[in-house]
């Protein structure tokens, strides 16, 4: 931190020793205000969430976080985030588990293996996937993926791997946690693959060629040179993807089916923090329900902050170990 300040200090000081020029001052003010604005905004969001969640915070306190219950019917209201927290964790982690190897494989193919004329178009297509609005991917989930998974993939997985509890009996309609996982995986895929591609491209050519010259196979070169070099960056990309999956609301609401329970069967319906807020905030009927929904938002914010900090820590640690700032 202090070294960073030092560099800023030294570049800001005019070289010739003249007084600070107006342009520099303006830049300082504008950029400083922007940075302060972002910080204040995060603070405000957190404050508004705590303030809005007050009825629920006062009534349930911390146990709300793991309590499995959600009944908005007036007269028998009870709220808890347990099942949504579980849903968020299982959907985002499994989505990452599906997307990560695929994304890294795509990135490797595009940097090392694909014929040169294919690299441009395929890269562009993968990047377009990242730009598809989530509501459209949700539609894809409802209209195509859901029915397809329900009719073909879920029964197959159930009959082959049914002894593992997560592959229980197939869903009755196309909506399930599994559909949500696949939809999220599609969303994460382009993020992780395009960042990984950049990272692989940044691996110094002489390192790669050196390895090959030593007689390694291409796979050994990838494993021995490229992966270690890009490891920190890939971890950060994965966490970024995880963050996207955790926060996604609309597309998940469209395909997950809802329900307040913890099932190990991923072919059953469920809810995540984001999808519950998206489904229920409009038209919430009591103060306590609104407060509880905002409490869910607060949990989501904390979840995301923890993840983003983790990503930064990983990146910094790897950068330090490699002795380069390059990640």
């Amino acid at each position, binding site marked *: 931190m202090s070294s960073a300040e030092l560099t800023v200090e030294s570049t800001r000081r005019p070289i010739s020793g003249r007084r600070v020029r107006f342009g520099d001052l303006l830049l300082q003010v504008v950029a400083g205000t922007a940075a302060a604005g972002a910080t204040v905004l995060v603070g405000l969001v957190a404050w508004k969430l705590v303030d809005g969640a007050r009825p629920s915070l006062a009534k349930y306190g911390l146990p709300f976080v793991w309590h499995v219950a959600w009944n908005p*019917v007036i007269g028998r209201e009870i709220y808890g985030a347990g099942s949504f927290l579980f849903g968020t964790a299982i959907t985002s982690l499994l989505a990452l588990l599906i997307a990560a190897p695929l994304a890294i494989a795509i990135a490797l193919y595009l940097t090392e293996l694909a014929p040169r004329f294919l690299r441009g178009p395929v890269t562009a297509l993968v990047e377009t996937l990242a730009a598809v609005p989530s509501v459209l991917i949700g539609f894809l989930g409802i209209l195509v993926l859901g029915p397809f998974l329900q009719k073909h993939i879920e029964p197959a997985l159930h009959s082959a791997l049914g002894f593992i509890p997560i592959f229980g009996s197939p869903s*009755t*309609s196309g*909506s399930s946690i599994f559909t949500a996982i696949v939809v999220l995986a599609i969303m994460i895929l382009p993020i992780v693959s395009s960042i990984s591609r950049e990272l692989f491209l940044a691996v110094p050519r002489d390192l790669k060629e050196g390895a090959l010259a030593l007689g390694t196979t291409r796979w050994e070169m990838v494993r021995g040179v490229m992966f270690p070099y890009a490891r920190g960056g890939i971890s950060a990309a994965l966490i970024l993807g995880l963050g996207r999956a955790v926060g996604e609301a609309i597309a998940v609401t*469209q395909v997950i089916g809802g329900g307040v329970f913890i099932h190990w069967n991923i072919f059953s319906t469920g809810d995540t923090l984001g999808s519950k807020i998206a489904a229920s905030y409009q038209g919430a*009927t*009591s103060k306590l329900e609104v407060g509880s929904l905002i409490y869910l938002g607060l949990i989501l914010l904390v979840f995301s902050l923890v993840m983003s900090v983790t990503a930064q820590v990983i990146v910094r640690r790897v950068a330090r170990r490699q002795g380069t700032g390059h990640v």
Partner: protein
Amino acid sequence: MPKYRSFIRRTALVGVVAVLAVTAAGTAGASRSTKSGTTLSGAGSTFVAPLVAQWVNPLGSAYGYELQYSAIGSGGGVAAVTARTVDFGASDAPLTSDQFKACNGCVQIPWALSATAIIYNLPGVKNLIKMNGPTLAKIFMGQITAWNDPAIQKLNKGVSLPSTKIAIIHRSDNSGTTYNLTDYLSSVSPAWQSQLGKGVAVNWPVGSGQRGSAGVAAAVQQTVGGIGYADVAYSLGNHLKFFAMQNRSGKYATPGLKGILAAATSDQKPTPGTNELSIVNPPKKYPLAYPISTFTYVIVPTRSPKAPDLRKFLFWAVTKGQTFGPKLLFEPIPKSVLVVAEKTIRKIQS
């Protein structure tokens, strides 16, 4: 090549001129219509939206009002009128006491009347198969899981029902339609009443949730064996199959105008103060009544700068406005309710 370029330039120029002309005409038209009258803005229920849409032109020519309605859902309508960003809100479910308090001096007026259809998808089986309340409650509670269950078969002698699994599809968002259905199920099934109750969302024990009537209908159409629910205009408009529901007299009624009217003329009176009015499961003496019928409400602040115009609009809506209903399967509201509605409208003052 130069020729080609000049062609492009000319076409572009013509295009720009055309767009400008249209925009100018548009703004001129808009300013003309706003000059001649007051704008009344509303938001809420998607259920009542087709009816409100019918009112725009006649209201414009009768009083010069410009009616703007956003069908953002009942919940959104309540929120909007609570924040006073619109002149009126529309909701299919009556306000809860928390919502009344938050709205700070709002009244709720029943202003339209329709029904919820229970839709299903069972290829090879005819439309309007028979269903009764207790059986429907058991289906939605997950206690009846196959179409050829004796309880359903008993009601439909001679119909060959398959052993297909029943897939329940319900709303995942808060909805007046859910309120109507769960209000009905609570009144016919003590088990439903004690375990689940009624509300714009309940703690569904089985099934999968979808957003909006459109989401539910799409999922039902995709799922063989699916059962869902949607307002009757939507169900008919999309050619969905729905149940004939047994009412208290033992007769089977369909969610048509006759069935809705019979349910609405039953004895129930609006609750004093809130004007809340439930007409589900009406008494025996109305053999034609469709048992899952419902009023839908307009919510207005009693203090409004546009009070005279709002009063005029609402009087029109509950009288003349009702004549636009039947072709959209909204039955005109009965006299007894009209009296209460008009009395409440008079409370709106500036």
